[in-house]
């Protein structure tokens, strides 16, 4: 279809589609009057049963923990997929006449040092100063998920930002050192494996998969809600590892392109 015909064809379809959608929506309960039992039941029992004040985390990692395992796996598979799709192609590594990968790294560093503009002092100070606090903050969010809004997913994303800050500070060597593939992939794998392991532990104790078997602790303190804390940490590891991997893979692409553009050594 040529673009104009496609546009008109689609406009007619989408108007009809919107009509169907709106027709389906008009019978919903009015906005602001949530009726259904599921949320209300959980709001009433979660704090008492799980000693967790943040019901959302209790839902995510206890009541519907199996969903969270699935979601984490989606993240994991997408990151693996992205690394797979953006892996160095044969024609890219052959740019240096078939030299090994190590020399490519060396050439990259050299070209960067010689031609890439260094980050300004202000940028460097600010970004590097933020690295420490962000790591602490990230872990705080991960471990306090059962008390206040937070948890493995949010904290994991925060934990993935320090490497990016290091890159922005212009310190490529440290960036490459902290994002070494072996470590990052190990962390990611450990996260998923940890989640599955906690689930299997439930089986060994005679309960169901993902049963909450650790002592529940006191509501409102950091050590509470049993396995929710463990699962939070596992998720935090997996998510942070995943996002660091993504950042690394995409930035690697930028450097590749730069290398090719700058005269293709």
């Amino acid at each position, binding site marked *: 279809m040529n673009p104009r015909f496609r546009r008109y064809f689609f406009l007619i379809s989408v108007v009809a589609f919107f*009509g169907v959608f709106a*027709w389906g929506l008009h019978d919903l309960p009015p906005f602001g009057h949530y009726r259904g039992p*599921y949320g209300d039941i959980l709001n009433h029992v979660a704090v008492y049963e799980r000693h967790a004040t943040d019901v959302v985390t209790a839902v995510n990692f206890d009541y519907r923990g199996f*969903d969270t*395992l699935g979601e984490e796996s989606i993240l994991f598979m997408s990151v693996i*997929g992205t690394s797979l799709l953006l892996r160095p192609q044969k024609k890219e590594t052959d740019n240096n006449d078939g030299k090994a990968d190590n020399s490519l790294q060396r050439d990259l560093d050299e070209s960067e040092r010689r031609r890439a503009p260094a980050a300004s002092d202000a940028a460097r100070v600010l970004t590097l100063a933020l690295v420490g606090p962000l790591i602490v903050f990230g872990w705080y969010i991960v471990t306090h998920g059962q008390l206040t809004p937070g948890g493995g997913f949010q904290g994991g994303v925060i934990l993935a930002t320090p490497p990016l800050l290091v890159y922005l500070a212009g310190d490529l060597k440290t960036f490459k050192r902290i994002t070494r593939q*072996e470590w990052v992939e190990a962390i990611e794998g450990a996260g998923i494996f940890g989640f599955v392991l906690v689930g299997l532990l439930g089986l060994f104790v005679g309960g169901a998969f993902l049963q909450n078997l650790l002592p529940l602790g006191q509501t409102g303190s950091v050590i509470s809600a049993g396995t929710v804390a463990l699962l939070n940490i596992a998720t935090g590891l997996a998510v942070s590892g995943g996002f660091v991997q993504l950042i690394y893979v995409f930035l690697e692409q930028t450097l590749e392109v730069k290398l090719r553009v700058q005269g293709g050594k």
Partner: protein
Amino acid sequence: MSLSSIVAHITALPVATPLGTAAVLAALNKFLPRRMADTLAILATLVTLFTETLLLYSVRSQPFVYWYGGWAPRSGAALGICFVIDPLSCALAMLISVLVLVAFVFSLRYFDSIGTMFHVLVLGFLAAMSGFAFTGDLFNLFVFFELMSASAFALCGYKNEETTAQQGALNFAITNTIGAFLVLCGIAMLYSRTGALNMAQIGRALGQQSDATVITAFVFLLVGFYVKAAIFPFHFWLADAHAVAPTPVCILFSGIMVQLGVYAVARVYWAIMAGPFAAHRGALMSLLLVIGTITSLLGAIMCFGQRHLKRLLAFSTISHTGLLVIGFALLDPHALSGVALYVAGHGLVKASLFIGAGILLHRYGSVDELELRGRAQRHHFSGIVFLLGALGLAGVPPNLTFLGEHAIDHAATLVHQDWIPVIFAFSGAITSAAVLRVYGRVYLGWGDRESLRTGKQIPEERETAGPHHRIPAVMILPAFLMVIAALGLTLTPKLRRAAETGAFTMADTAAYQSRVLDGAHLPNTFAPPGQTALTPTLISTSCAIVFGLLLAAWSLSPLWPKQDVIVRPFKLVMGGLRSLHSGHVGDYVAFLTLGAAAIGIVLGLLIRRFGM
């Protein structure tokens, strides 16, 4: 510990084993040698298969429900997520594991694997499909749907050196993601109406009410899942994805992933929507019969007009999935048992056909039918895969597809839809004719060098390492095992009975809801006894294969019309159809929107205005 408590504990394993192994393989990516990775992956798949066999054995008389986290429902309200283990879902999960095993065996040693990433993605795919088959929670279904999709997108774009691979993967990814969003919207609407995410609970809460929200939610779920199932008009992505994906991935896509879309709609219908649509069966049946028939015929015709082997097989998948939708559209447990048998038979046959194409790619570096003309004349043995595969596609006994087709045909005649066996025969004939034509051209050297089909040649590169002058056992063995299994399993005693039990149990909505929400221990629902005569289907499938043979032979012979006056209208039609399959994702999404809107409007009108 009794058997039942052991079995209860292993329910999580079909999902946990592949995921755990994938995590380990990913963590050790740079350290594991290729052999270790292959072994671990195959081991994990075998463990999963063994677990599912145990589960099937344990539910042969009574299904059971497994609650994750130990969250049993309270006074009919589900708090957690459950797996419903019934015979049909176990059989489906076993088929999934078998096909994944075949994919791994095919890729042993030769397939160009990047570290362990291929294994990790396929194991994730396995976990997703297993969870998808068993789950009893609607959002959990969506999560596994997304996991399936994420792994599939990456696997499809595997060959990142070929630019067409990325485009095919993009088309696939974009259309399926929109389908997933539609599913999520449907789930949201049902959640708003009933306040539950558990399928049985939603079904019970809906009762018989079929207002606008319920109808629209079902339409969205239907469209979303049928995007995955590649049903017209959502089917455009499948041929693109198959043309570029590596062979083991194609085995999985065509063998089982697409059929899971049909399964999901069947599960949603019988767990949730049977009540609301009880008074509107006529509307739903008519709509789905039309869609299924168009899909089937369009797929068959496009299949015949392809020269790229994998695209040819992809269109034949579309055609046969259309037949599955026709089977489901009858909304009858007998037909459902036929659909189950057909899924099994088609999955096995299609897997072996794709291995056949993969063998040709490995040996000769091409999957273009015209380029391969006559080149495989010295390898008659591997060509038998194509012959037997064609028989399977036509539904010739003693194939599993024959049994499936018979059950659906019989159910169709009971509701006076006698034209359905004709569609089955016709589609079977055309798709088997295409495969037979491939056999004739590639393995016997018949046919012209060029032909009237002016489809563009899509180049394909080798995906396996050498040596290329032999066909490795790891490739040829699974192919033969699959076709022979499709033939041999038919002879399993009481197979039809078992399939009917599985189907009737799945279709028994009240019992399903009772088991899940009330913890009732109800045995499997059995079909009313009675044998059906196989003769009518025997006749129709014989006609199908004879017609297919004649058509294939005719297309290869000099008698195939070349005169402009005869050929021109066909060329126009084919050209028109081909330009619809433009490879442009905007077109695909436009058709998706049109299809969704049309299905919604038609169903709404049929129910409201015509009171069907």
